[in-house]
């Protein structure tokens, strides 16, 4: 499939937004979007891991798994790569930004099991993207993630002053916001033919 970089970008950021259209990686989305600051940190970490994972998994898939006919190992080898990258990011963040490390908390190791990242690399493999396309898709998917995270965090920060009924306080409230945001993305961006 020959996709131009532009259509990959529009796809990754809006039309096939990983959070609001494909519903991948919702755990960290709801968990870390309470403050803009930690949401930005989380997004940066996810963006970094997505790009690195796209590069590493492309190399493994094209030069190792395809020639050897071992494509059934795609998922497991990608998971190893992602787990490795997350561990590396965790080391680096703990060393250079302890406050960010603490505010991300459990969600940092959970990037390992963040399906958005595995989603990116598996889609890359499935769509037979070339190297540049793969990396570009990783970047745009990460940017889409970042955008929605910041949107959500801003909305949740503003709505702190609202007095909502006790039954929907907290998580249910976040789900309502997610639903409304998601409706906008699904119905608006999917009218554009790709």
């Amino acid at each position, binding site marked *: 499939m020959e996709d131009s970089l532009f259509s990959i970008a529009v796809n990754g950021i809006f039309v096939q937004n990983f959070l609001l259209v494909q519903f991948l990686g919702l755990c960290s989305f709801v968990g870390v979007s309470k403050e803009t600051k930690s949401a930005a940190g989380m997004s940066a970490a996810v963006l970094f891991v997505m790009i690195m994972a796209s590069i590493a998994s492309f190399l*493994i898939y094209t030069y*190792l*798994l395809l020639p*050897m*006919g*071992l494509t059934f*190992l795609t998922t*497991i*080898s990608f998971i*190893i*790569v992602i787990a*490795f990258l997350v*561990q*590396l990011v965790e*080391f*680096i963040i*703990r*060393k250079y930004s*302890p*406050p960010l490390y*603490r505010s991300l908390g459990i969600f940092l190791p959970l990037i390992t099991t963040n399906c958005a990242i595995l989603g990116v690399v598996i889609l890359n493999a499935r769509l037979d993207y070339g190297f540049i396309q793969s990396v570009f898709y990783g970047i745009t998917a990460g940017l889409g993630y970042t955008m929605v995270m910041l949107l959500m965090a801003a909305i949740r920060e503003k709505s702190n*002053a*609202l*007095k909502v009924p006790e039954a929907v306080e907290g998580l249910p409230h976040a789900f309502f916001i997610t639903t409304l945001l998601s409706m906008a993305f699904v119905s608006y961006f999917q009218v554009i033919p790709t």
Partner: protein
Amino acid sequence: MNPVAIIGGSALVIGGIGFLVGIILIWASQKFAVETNPLVEEVIEVLPGANCGACGYAGCADFGEKVVDGLAPVDGCPVGGFDTAKLVGELLGQEVKEAESIYPFVRCNGGLHCTDNIDYVGIEDCRAVMMTSIGEKGCKYGCMGRGTCVRACPFGAIEIGEDHFPHINKNLCKSCGLCVEVCPNGVMVMANDSEQVHVLCRSHDKGKAVKAVCEFGCIGCKICVKNCPAEAITVTNFLAEIDQEKCTNCGQCVEKCPQKSIVMRSVEATA
């Protein structure tokens, strides 16, 4: 492709990736190692863990680190109070003296006895009320009773009573001061437990203007100044202020105040 080659290839590929990745991680864990003092963990263990930030640091973990480094005072946690300070002191080999507990109180006595400027309908939050051009209450210094402090309190120690005032439950209050910080009008104030006599008014308006809007506001009549045996009260800009260092809690001013805006806190707390 025969099965042996497939199994062998798979083992080689996955094993190879795993081995490589493992080696890099071992290298990285040494390169980016963070030294942690085991004492820090122990100190964090005895802290309340509310992460309220009342100590001035970013949460309990940060405070624990700073205490061990000697950058923060041992009794710096207002939430844990004396008990926590003692535990932290034991861990660090320092002695801790018991400090007096402090509680917040509302420096306003208006409430239902203060007239309303407008019929406010909107977000139930003092900060939102403050954004209206003239304010809800006739007195711009007073407590609006919309419960911003109630929602800011992490310990559920404040509730709005029928008199539209925040009431502080001393048993639940941990003296963290978040309510003082969040109050948009600065009506909430911290005071030592032994400081009992307080002027429950912040209005610097002239006596006539205060009387027009509030039954219990300070009009600056100076009767309290004349009656105070300890000379602890001064009136500046139509508002009485009590010097807590000189005050002996005799209660003369409470009796003599024509507006009943000076109050004994112990009485007020039980009322």
